[in-house]
């Protein structure tokens, strides 16, 4: 099986004492709030025109055979128009049943490690723990993942050019992913 190669440390680590580190923490915290509060139009503004947003599927492999992420198949594999259509479905119709009533998501983004690739271009690794509550049912859905992002900063502010969501599970214990990670 072809598996995805993941570069863990591209570029120069941005120190926690570097003001850019705090800018990136602020960015990811604000982004998390946008998604939990379902301010999705604002969130789309953070995505670049050429964004690739994807979450490869994972298989269990024996030790030494790699992490098991597919270099092809994903749960998500999106460009900007696809992300925009998902948001339009929630906004412009009253029939997006998987999110009506809406899920209540609560996400925790930690272990943020930015790496400087060039001027105003950063690879940012982070961990995400996402909890979802629907209706009056328990227990909560739990998803944990590592995210590998590519963020660029320009006059328009920060734009995400790439997000790879590396989910820990091979079989997701959720009925769908009707939200963003």
């Amino acid at each position, binding site marked *: 099986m072809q598996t995805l190669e993941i570069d863990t440390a591209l570029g120069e680590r941005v120190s926690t004492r570097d003001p850019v580190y705090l800018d990136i923490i602020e960015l990811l915290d604000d982004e998390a709030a946008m998604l939990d509060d379902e301010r999705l139009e604002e969130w789309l503004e953070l995505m670049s025109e050429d964004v690739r947003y994807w979450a490869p*599927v994972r298989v269990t*492999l024996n030790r030494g055979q790699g992490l098991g992420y597919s270099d092809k198949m994903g749960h998500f594999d999106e460009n900007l128009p696809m992300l925009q259509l998902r948001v339009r479905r929630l906004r412009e119709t009253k029939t997006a049943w*998987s999110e009506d009533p809406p899920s209540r998501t609560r996400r925790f983004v930690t272990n943020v490690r930015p790496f400087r690739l060039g001027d105003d271009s950063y690879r940012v690794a982070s961990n995400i723990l996402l909890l979802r509550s629907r209706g009056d049912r328990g227990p909560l859905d739990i998803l944990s993942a590592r995210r590998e992002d590519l963020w660029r900063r320009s006059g328009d502010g920060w734009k995400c050019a790439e997000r790879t969501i590396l989910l820990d599970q091979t079989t997701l214990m959720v*009925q769908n992913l009707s939200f963003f990670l």
Partner: protein
Amino acid sequence: VARGEDGEVSVLLNVCRHRGMEVCRAESGNAAFFRCPYHYWTYGQDGRFIGLPVAKEQMQGDIIPKDELGLRRARVERYVGMIFATWDEQAPTLAEYMGDIKWYLDLMFDRTDEGFVVSGPPQRFLIPANWKCAGEQFAGDGYHTLGLHRSLLELGVLGGAVGMDSAPGMYGVDVSASGHGLRCIPQAETYQAFAGASVDGLSPIDKLRLVPPPGVTPDRVDQLARRFTPGQLRVLADFPPAAGGMFPNSGCINFYSPMPDGKLGVAMGWHSFVPRGPAGFELLNWVFVQRGTEADEELHRRSTIFGAGTTGVVEMDDAEAWPSMQRSARGAIGRRQTLKYQALLGDKKPDDWAGPGHVYGGFSKDDNQWNWWLRWLDFMTGKAW
């Protein structure tokens, strides 16, 4: 599932004959043999018993001979590259089991000499509902698109304008055979949209030249004429099978899927609904890409999972309905309420329809799903196969 050095595919029960630990604990990889970690009982790629350590102590005992201590093997057959297995030695052959539905499934998945490739490992996720919810829906519920997938009708992603009295995509031909079922969707609007022209008077193969089936490149259309009967070509040209399921627990799709960026994608793949207890099933979603269109593999993969599976804008709403049905079935009163399969059309074969099976032309009604349940009842009451 293991392919031996001789190329032969074996489907083995992943349970050691000794104490029952799983002998293979990775989903993918290469191995010369399967060795149980617990006590090192070792089996060949085809499951035969090879041996165990400290052979002189004969820890396999002398009650069952060595050549009967292999891993349990399933009966295996192939169809268009897919591997089907059964534990039942009394089961008929795969071709007999598929019966009349094969005539149509060939039109979906056996179109070209080169066949298709599977585009990476499947999505896997757990839906808190009984597997039959998905099984019976894929057998032929065209009607649910009207309600459950209404958001996509409203957005214009599926069909055209929608009102309470119109229902694009719900008219067509449902086909049912031995519990298997699928839906054939009229192509007149597709030709109008893609070719901008009326196709009246064109022969089936000329229509297929104008707009080849999803994933079939223009230079392969001649293969269709060679591979299929004239009756099959008429169905493929005018009412291609687009979605369905093989009884009991699979689903399949194959249709064009226009994407939000203006590209024309293909949604092609296979689902398995694997029971995980009475109130849960694992959905496995494989994406197929027709060989010869590898340049578009990424597009076809993306367009398939945009609609189907974990994040599919179509199927994420199915995953809202099935668990809800499951919760209703747990209610003290809710469980006593019967479900309604009362809109039975009865066989209604369109003129010139060459295909076998029960054929229901018109609005997609309950016949296919009811037949699915009757087939299930046969198995539950011992009238298997």
